[in-house]
């Protein structure tokens, strides 16, 4: 059982934030019968990003707290009137995991004080092993996906598209449970 989070861990969760959410369409001007690729990009920054480091890995591993699961959800919407919007892609769940393990990589461990490393299992289920801490963090906390909007989801004329995203994680020895939400600025697409 993971102990109740310390006040410090709760504060770390509160200090975690999402960066700006970018929505980048493959084109701003498309014919009516063409689908549209939309890249959504954002990252987790602040508390969790900072605390997920080698010292934390050592301590967490010692308490058998070995997997950080980040659940990203990303949906695309078309603005209608005022604050209202219509769903064009329902929120899709993407799970990434940071897994701690005792490495035998001679470059990374002395097998006494520094022996725990993290690899990442991405949303496709593929393991990714890096030699640098910053690469581990980027693989876990920087999100970028291309979503394909079917042609019938857009109407002729101007469409204002925006993304709503969330990132969620559970309680760990180093951070309290957290859930972040964010919305991108709308991007205009002309369908003719």
């Amino acid at each position, binding site marked *: *059982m*993971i102990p*109740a989070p310390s006040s410090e861990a709760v504060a770390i969760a509160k200090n975690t934030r999402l960066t700006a959410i970018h929505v980048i369409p493959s084109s701003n001007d498309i014919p009516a019968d063409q689908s549209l690729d939309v890249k959504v990009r954002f990252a987790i920054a602040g508390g969790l990003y900072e605390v997920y480091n080698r010292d934390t890995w050592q301590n967490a*591993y010692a308490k*058998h707290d*070995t*997997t950080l*699961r980040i*659940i990203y959800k990303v949906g695309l919407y078309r603005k209608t009137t005022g604050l209202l919007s219509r769903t064009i892609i329902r929120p899709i769940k993407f*799970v990434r995991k940071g*897994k*701690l*393990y*005792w*490495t*035998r*990589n*001679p*470059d*990374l461990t002395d*097998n*006494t004080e520094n022996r725990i490393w993290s*690899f990442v*299992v991405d949303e496709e*289920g*593929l*393991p990714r*092993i890096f*030699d640098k801490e910053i690469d581990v963090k980027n693989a876990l906390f920087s999100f970028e996906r291309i979503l394909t909007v079917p042609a019938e989801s857009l109407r002729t004329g101007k469409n204002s598209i925006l993304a709503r995203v969330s990132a969620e994680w*559970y*309680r760990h020895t180093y951070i309290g*449970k957290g859930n972040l939400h964010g919305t991108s600025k709308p991007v205009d697409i002309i369908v003719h």
Partner: protein
Amino acid sequence: MQIAGFDMAVTEVLEQKEAPKKINVIRKTQSICPECNRILPAIVFERDNKVFMTKTCPEHGETEELYYGDYEMYLKFSSYWSDGKGTHAPNVKLDNCQCPANCGLCTNHLSHTGLANIIVTNRCDLTCWYCFFYVKKGLEGAYVYEPTQEQIRMMVRTLRAERPVPGNSVQITGGEPTLREDLPEIIRIIKSEGVDHIQLNTNGINIALHPELAKIYRDAGVSNLYMSFDGVTPKTNPKNHWEAPYAIEACRQAHLGVVLVPTVIKSINDHELGGIINFARQNIDTVRAVNFQPVSLTGRMSKKEREKYRITIPDCIHRIEEQTNGEVTADSWFPVPSCSPVTHFIEAITNRPQYELSIHFACGAGTYVYLDNNKRLIPITRFVDIKGLLEFLDEKADEIYSGSNKWITLAKAATKIMSFIDKEKQPEGLNMGKLLFDALVRHDYSAIGQFHMKSLFLGMMHFQDKYNQDEERLQRCDIHYLTPDLRIIPFCSFNVIPEWYRDRIQKKYGIPVEEWEKGSGEKLEAKLYRGDLRKLKLGQRVEMSCSTSEIFQKVSNVQ
């Protein structure tokens, strides 16, 4: 030249091969020199969709070895990597040993004992050419090793004192354990110390000759036989081709389950893996599992010889797909540590440490298969979304650890579990939903046993050798040996470096063959099996006798 900052001699080797661009470094680890046991840095890399290990000893040069025969499968399996809770063995207090020295278990070790081997004798009634275990008369320093009953009791107590999870599964092994006449008493001793699961590793010949032994062993406490079975023809399985059907029939009569254990050697028997599964299918009322063991290459072998015999888990899995005509597909298999989410979920519910199979993903794999009405094999993945179910259980465990009410979570999970099962594709008569519910909610030994009883488990376990030895695998090994000096030694130390472990221990606690012969009043070779059973009836051509017998026909049904 450096690869990812790794400037070992391997860079020279890569340059010599003039194809560095084709090499994809996957990870770095430590290994040993197959000549001198020196601990070496090692690189695990991909080339031509296969995974290799390379290491360079300053004295003995480079060793490159096939590590995993399919890179895609390696990637899939490695995503299930899950380190265990660690373990504390009661009698070894060493900290931070330099693996693989001083095994016993030290605080470096990451998996508690999943299966504890107790060697009750190193005598055997066979003399198989590839076996490294049995005592060979005439060799210098040949010792008969047979721990006393009291030593065995103390070994089991050591196992039971392991924390946080006391060992609960023992394999009695040898040599050939049935050569010990006090074996039933040994079984009772192990059982009386609180061990739930006892399996008897045997070639089955004694049981074939004396069928009453099956019931005697079962009544004493054996859960199942773990029986060598290397192929379905006399050529691939000279060991017990003619005798295995009689042993199985004896077990059938005694209601004792059997696990078939083929040692798989490339170019020798790798073309009969489908046939072995077929044999198990014909005897599914008694055969509970087939556990394939890709060969561990012992002794000094040239690279050419190793390439001739070396086979890895993915190679076996692909051959099984081919040889079962696609009934057991490659994507039916999962690595052993993929069970961890089940453990995590049960731990979250019970709030206490549970038995966990946290071995390295490259060590073992498995799947369950069921029979449909046409006697076709249906892998569990055909009607259960295993990947989704495992992900779901892991997430539910996280929810409980994060403060969600466990009973509400459990109730929701029990309902949701059904959505991972495709009832249309489920074999008739099977209620997988109930089986999963019992296993996950009741989570006791009998529920797990029931899960096994309704299926045929297909497993793989690839024990290491000095050529492919990986410290990251060794550190996570959960198949251990109990020894009279009351240590608990990982299999891949005990057998990979026998000069440090197995041979040394057997010499210390054994007696010279000559002394044993004098004390016992019999010659070591007197217990060698001379093929009596296969000559039993007609006494003519060796193949004629058993092959015409009713039991052989009924049980083997081979052409």
